[in-house]
């Protein structure tokens, strides 16, 4: 009798717990440690209340993400269900079959893609005509500069005397480099807080010079053109700025090192991500708060960057992940994120009155993000950046000539395009 009671109790308990156990799905995601991630994390309880699905973020530095993700994709079941895809990987992950195509989900649920900036959808949405990601967040690059130095009458006069033209915001890469050299010489600050450290920092920054000077990585037939005359000129200007317009340690700087120089008032400008602006305007972190502004990269074409949401091919909760993406990218939540300081990818979020009231420069960001160009996305994007980072660093540190470095980079880039089957 006693036994019977005990077993039936166990049975009742099991029956009671089963449905909750089933509804108790926990989705996991590997996320970059940036303000955007913290904003979404704050909103997660709303999603849990609505759907009963828990979401857990594992927040790490950017540099650790790729290796962590790749090992998970290769295991039978990924620890991460929701995948945050950087635009560097937006070719590699779909090509390797590591993330799910989303077309059928979008069609089935009539998910509205029309609000997304075309530049964003092209970058972190489609890969070879198929939709794999929903654009989450953009980090296009632009020029951040010190307004107080631009408005300084003494500097203005001196500039005009030296260059025979008015001191204005530069319209070409060459003008920008000249202005940086001038500031370094006359304003007692570095011209540009550059991030010329080997690896992705130097490649990111250099790409702005390249695109704005009319250069590109590949032509339309996937032949490398990083050694074209425009590219060589852009690279020479870049290195000239490293030598004459940047702080001494620029060749070892990454994003954070450059930011610190700028925020301590030791530089006139930086080519950087637009989300640096609110940090630089925050008096708690920066001595130049209120004296910095953002505009398009001189020459007009900055580097576009962004993240997209995707579903891991080996997740056991694909439907739940899609549920999450639909929620986090719904108009309501997208606007809420932007109001809190997130970097939008949708027109309705960019143009929301509350968003613009909080962050007036988002009108400028929208323009920058619309015109900016991403790095080419294909199977070997990561390797491409690595090769370029090495060769550019060799050229900038004087171990190779610009021509020799770019020729070597072009040779390697052609080989990568051939390996990926893009070049016949």
């Amino acid at each position, binding site marked *: 009798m006693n036994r019977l009671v005990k077993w039936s109790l166990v049975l009742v308990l099991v029956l009671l717990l089963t449905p909750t156990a089933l509804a108790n799905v926990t989705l996991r995601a590997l996320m970059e440690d940036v303000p955007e991630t913290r904003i979404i994390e704050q909103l997660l309880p709303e999603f849990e209340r609505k759907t009963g699905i828990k979401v857990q973020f594992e927040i790490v530095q950017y*540099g650790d993400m790729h290796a962590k993700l790749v090992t998970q994709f290769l295991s039978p079941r990924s620890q991460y269900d929701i995948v945050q895809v950087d635009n560097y990987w937006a070719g590699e992950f779909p090509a390797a079959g590591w993330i799910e195509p989303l077309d059928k989900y979008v069609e089935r649920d009539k998910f509205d893609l029309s609000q997304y900036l075309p530049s964003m959808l092209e970058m972190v949405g489609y890969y070879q005509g198929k939709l794999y990601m929903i654009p989450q967040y953009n980090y296009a690059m632009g020029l951040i500069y010190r307004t107080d130095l631009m408005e300084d009458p003494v500097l203005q006069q001196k500039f005009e005397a030296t260059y025979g033209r008015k001191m204005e915001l530069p319209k070409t890469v060459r003008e920008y480099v000249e202005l940086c050299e001038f500031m370094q010489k006359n304003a007692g600050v570095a011209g540009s807080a550059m991030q010329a450290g*080997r*690896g992705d920092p130097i490649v990111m920054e250099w790409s702005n010079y390249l695109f704005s000077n009319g250069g590109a990585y590949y032509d339309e037939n996937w032949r490398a053109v990083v050694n074209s005359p425009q590219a060589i000129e852009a690279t020479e200007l870049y290195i000239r700025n490293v030598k004459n317009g940047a702080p001494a340690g620029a060749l070892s700087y990454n994003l954070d090192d450059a930011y610190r120089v700028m925020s301590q008032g030791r530089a006139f400008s930086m080519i950087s991500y637009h989300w640096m602006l609110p940090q630089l305007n925050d008096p708690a972190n920066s001595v130049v708060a209120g004296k910095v502004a953002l505009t398009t990269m001189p020459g007009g074409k900055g580097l576009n960057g962004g993240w997209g949401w995707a579903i891991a091919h080996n997740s056991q909760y694909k439907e739940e992940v899609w549920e999450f993406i639909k929620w986090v990218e719904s108009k309501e939540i997208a606007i809420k994120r932007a109001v809190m300081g997130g970097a939008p990818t949708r027109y309705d979020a960019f143009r929301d009155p509350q968003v613009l009231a909080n962050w007036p420069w988002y009108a400028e960001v929208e323009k920058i993000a619309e015109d900016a160009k991403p790095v080419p996305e294909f199977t070997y994007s990561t*390797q491409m950046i690595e090769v370029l*980072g*090495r060769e550019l660093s060799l050229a900038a*540190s004087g*171990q190779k000539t610009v021509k020799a470095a770019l020729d070597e980079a072009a040779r390697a880039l052609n080989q990568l395009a051939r390996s990926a089957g893009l070049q016949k």
Partner: protein
Amino acid sequence: MKMRKFSRWDLQKQEKLTGALFITPTLLCLIAVVLIPLVYSLVISFSDYSFLRPIISEFRGWENFRHAFEDQYFWNSLLVTLKFVVIVVSFEFLIGFAIALLLNREIRFKGVYYAILTIPMVMSPVAVGLIWKMLLHPELGVINWLLSLVGIPPVNWLGTTSGAIWTIVFVDIWHQVSFMILVLLAGLVSLPNEPFQAAKIDGANSLQILFKITIPLMRPVIATALLIRTIMAFRTYDLVYVMTKGGPGVSTDVLSYFIYKKTFMGLDLAQASAISWVLLVIVLLMVLALFKFMRTDEEVA
């Protein structure tokens, strides 16, 4: 008589069996986590395995090795690594031995010194790299500020091709020299007292004692310390990853970081395995040489 002999033999057999039983779990673990991956990586290094196609579809013979040997950046990395290992290990040995000798005396506050010495050792290399990167920031770092107080112009610690490797060497020494000190000190403490007393009675001066007695007696310990540090130095990766990413140019591109990039950026595990094996063989050769050094020493003794 016969009975006793048999039982002794039986006992021996039993002892052997017990020994084997004790060692089996360890051996199995080692086979599972060391031998099998090692053999597997050797197999992969002759194949076309990559993260994009994680299967072995064909064997390429020596192709992966040939490819590595034809890569100028592989040779550069090998050179950088050898340079780094030789400089770091010899400096750490010299500094470590000197400090160990200083500590091996009757002095006060020994406990305090030991505590200070162990602090860097327990820190993770990534943290060490990050802290030093901040301290050495050319514009805003504390080090350059302190130098400026005594009139030395700011030093570009990590931004020059000739200087960056020395900065990494310096940080590595700061981080790892305590290991050398502690191992050598343990050796010094355990040396027998008699030879030293005899030498003093015979009127030997302290330099003579050092070169004729201390160092010869310490040779096995020195060899072990050098061996362990050499193996560890070959694997240095974290400092480079955090502080320079191999730059400027390729001036700090050590081989273990080179292999990391082949694996996780190039996604080419076959090539990476091949290069790892080249590194392994080089390290093994150095270890064998050091072992030989240790052996001859024992025979002499």
